């Protein structure tokens, strides 16, 4: 076990070389019995960024977060905070705070006492006056001024969420960890809280690490997203990078929606690739990294990248309109291709008006630019 070091000791050092990386996972694995919850995680978290762990339930997001908080010790590898290995550092010594999924607010304390809890644990003690001021400011930040004497059960779900946030940020942690903080809220409230979270992060400059299985939430909030699958990190990048350059079918599928056409990768050359489907159709697109000719793969095309016309165009595909959903600004079509199967198409309102739209049962023609399509390895 690493020697027990106190963080105060570390923080007392001159802040000469404040590194851009506030926390780091180095080849971190964690197993519970024979369940490998996390495998070989490597990730640097930049100071002040908003990072999300994204993946389906059970893929190890919470485990990763709990290792940063100190509730779980890695089975192997190193967790670093501010350049210091903290594998053996207890949670109460880490300059990190967590917002729990169920909030975990203390039912026997008032709102103000919940928020001031962390400040009251400080040694040497903070003056009572200072604690009260900080709590007051935190209440203001989460817009709950005047609620300080309330009991937790007197607060609505959204208010409890904000108390939980205030209880964490009042300590000015180097890392704020949020485990699916909005999952329990209804859709409308969730949207509001997303905006508040983002504002808060910008206003405070605290590094946020969010765990979510909601891709929309991750896309709209994060500076960077770390996509996980079965305990492993699949891809890390900005929302746009992940959306435009997914490195696998898994990421393309999980981040946004996409149509996939399976086939054999026929040729890869100069960043472009050709795919031949089982029925002999040849499709072209950008080649994803590490793609090799002769393997099976798929072509991914986003619904909004597909143009839908009445008249055939060169290399367009004839389809039958199967379903049409009016979404206001967009219309979503489900069309059926003879060999490619069901395809989702999203057309903007303008195109609709010019073309009056397509009725169910009508024949249409689909076309897209090769640059918008991506040929991926199957995984």
């Amino acid at each position, binding site marked *: 076990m690493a020697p027990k070091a106190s963080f105060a000791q570390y923080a007392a050092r001159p802040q000469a070389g404040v590194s851009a990386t506030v926390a780091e996972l180095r080849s971190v694995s964690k197993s519970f019995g024979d369940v490998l919850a996390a495998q070989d995680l490597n990730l640097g978290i930049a100071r002040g960024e908003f990072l999300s762990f994204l993946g389906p339930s059970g893929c190890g997001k919470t485990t990763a977060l709990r290792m940063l908080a100190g509730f779980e010790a890695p089975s192997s590898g190193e967790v670093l905070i501010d350049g210091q290995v903290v594998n053996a550092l207890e949670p109460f010594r880490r300059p990190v705070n967590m917002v729990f999924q169920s909030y*975990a607010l*203390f039912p*026997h304390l008032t709102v103000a006492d919940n928020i001031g809890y*962390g400040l009251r644990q400080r040694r040497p003690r903070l003056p009572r006056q200072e604690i009260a001021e900080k709590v007051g400011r935190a209440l203001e930040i989460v817009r709950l001024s005047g609620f300080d004497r309330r009991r937790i059960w007197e607060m609505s779900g959204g208010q409890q969420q904000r108390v939980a946030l205030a209880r964490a940020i009042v300590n000015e942690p180097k890392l704020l960890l949020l485990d699916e903080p909005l999952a329990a809220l209804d859709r409308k409230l969730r949207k509001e809280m997303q905006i508040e979270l983002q504002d808060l992060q910008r206003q405070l400059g605290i590094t946020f690490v969010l765990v979510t299985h909601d891709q929309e939430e991750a896309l709209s909030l994060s500076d960077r997203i770390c996509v996980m699958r079965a305990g492993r990190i699949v891809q890390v990048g900005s929302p746009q990078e992940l959306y435009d350059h997914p490195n696998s079918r898994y990421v393309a599928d999980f981040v946004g929606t996409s149509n996939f056409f399976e086939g054999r990768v026929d040729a890869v050359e100069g960043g472009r690739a050709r795919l031949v489907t089982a029925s002999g159709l040849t499709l072209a697109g950008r080649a994803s990294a590490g793609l090799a000719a002769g393997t099976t793969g798929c072509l991914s095309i986003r619904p909004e990248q597909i143009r839908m016309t009445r008249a055939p165009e060169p290399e367009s595909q004839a389809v039958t309109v199967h379903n049409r959903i009016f979404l206001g600004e967009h219309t979503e079509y489900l069309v059926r291709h003879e060999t490619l199967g069901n395809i989702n198409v999203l057309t903007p309102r303008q195109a609709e008006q010019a073309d009056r739209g397509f009725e169910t049962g009508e024949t249409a023609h689909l076309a897209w630019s090769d640059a918008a399509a991506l040929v991926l390895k199957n995984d």
Partner: protein
Amino acid sequence: MTRQERNWLLVAPAGAWFLVMLVLPLSVVLVFSFGERGPAGGYVPAFTLEQYANLPARLTAFKNTLILAPLGTLAALLIAYPLAYQLAVRTDPKWKTILLVLVIVPFWTSILIRSYAWIFILGGRGLPALLEAIGIEGVRLIYTPLAVTIGIVYGYLPLMVFPIYVALDRLDKRLLEASSDLGARPFRTFLQVTLPLSIPGVATGCLLVFILLMGEFLIPALLGGGKVFFVGNALVDLFLQSRNWAFGSAVAFTLIVIMLVTVTIYMRLIARLRLGRDDAQIM
């Protein structure tokens, strides 16, 4: 049937039980306490405060009860809390049930037999003999207040363990993590989260044990050996041996009043302590 009629019907059995088993005997006791002892014992109707004036004759019994019942409750609490904590918080869920059953196993034998066992353990050839073997001489345990306290704690421990166990088991373990995350060391987490949230269980356990101890007579009779006796023993004596029902009733009624007053004060105090509504269980 209206809703109100239905409600009355639902509480009717409990009401009848309450009337026959509680109000009626209590009234009898109250009436008897103002009466006189008959020439051959028993009760002769009268209206006199003589019995109450005679209460100081049984002062020792009241003193013993009022000292040893709270003391025994406190001792049981101090032993039960760590046990319940270990069971509820630290024990692997797989083992919880088995260990809990072990706590109540002694209840499968009559308290009479178990108290007899203690007579031997605390008696001259038990612990004192062992102590003598290692050079500590002249220790007397049996028929002392200590023996009675040991017997009391032993007999009533499960009643204290269970409510505390329930309160600690219900405690959301994430609150402990949250406390640690906010910088509290384990002991401070215990003081600031675990302990306050287990107060309802502690309150229930103490109340149960205290009330039962106030009426206890078997353990003092066996382990106190006539030297350390409770009000309960005085009552056994007055009703069964000296057959002075009138005085016995006065003693009994006084005990009931003392109990009502202490329990009321106690409940008031606990209500003030208990602030969280989440833990409005049990009591």
